[in-house]
């Protein structure tokens, strides 16, 4: 009679990890992170204070604010 030896739980999980990369994201977290990345990108293209405006404003009014 053949007896099947029960595999060790830790070995089984380690083997599974070895053949299935652990790189998981919750779909909602992923969507939010991508949205943040897009917002950052958009902010990068359209700065809050376009170059030159602050210095012109400062020259005219003697103040940066």
């Amino acid at each position, binding site marked *: 009679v053949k007896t099947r030896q029960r595999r*060790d*739980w*830790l070995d*089984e*999980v*380690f083997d*599974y*990890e*070895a053949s*299935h*990369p*652990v*790189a*998981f*994201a*919750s*779909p*909602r*977290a*992923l969507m*939010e*992170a*991508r949205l*943040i*990345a897009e917002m*950052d990108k958009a902010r990068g293209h359209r700065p809050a204070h376009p170059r030159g405006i602050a210095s012109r404003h400062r020259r005219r009014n003697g103040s940066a604010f």
Partner: protein
Amino acid sequence: MKPFIFYVEAAGEFRAVELKFAAEAEVRSVRMWRKMAPATDASEFAALAAKRWFYYTREGATAASLDELRAAIARNARSEIAFLLVAGAEWTTRHRFLALAYCRRTWCHRLVLDFLAVRPELSFAGQPIRGVGTGMIFGLASLASSLGVDVIWGEATASSAPFYGKVLGTPSVKDFFIIRQDPMRRLRQRYLAKLKKRLAPSEWRTYCS
């Protein structure tokens, strides 16, 4: 405070890895995974998790240490705080960090796991490093226990559900997983029992001390 340690298999031995809270320098470091070629899901998730961490840090809603997290909870028991955990070890000279987990502490004192990524192609002495993902879940359960958190949950996908199912010993994981107090304790006990069998007695004593 005792560090959160788990063990991985590297070059035929079980070696210790420390799980710690990431501060800005550590977050910048894992963000650099995106420079890996070829691009992988892990590198994309690391970059996005870092992006999210910086966004919430600007809002004052992250913790860069366990003390910071405890202090934030003490100030406001209903605060929602995000944090990034990174796993690293001194013996892994080629890789500063082996894995990351982006988590949130919710208003009702539960932990949510949003991102879990193990750096691909990890090796030591020419052999793959095994068991990092499992160790991360064990480490997260240990952190939850030290915080008195009784539930860890997260969304699962077609690719992550089998992993969570195997680690938790519940093949029924579908599109979310929930680890309550008893399964969390069982997971830790099971992991520690296996560890005890594999570590040298002196190392086991050091681990327990």
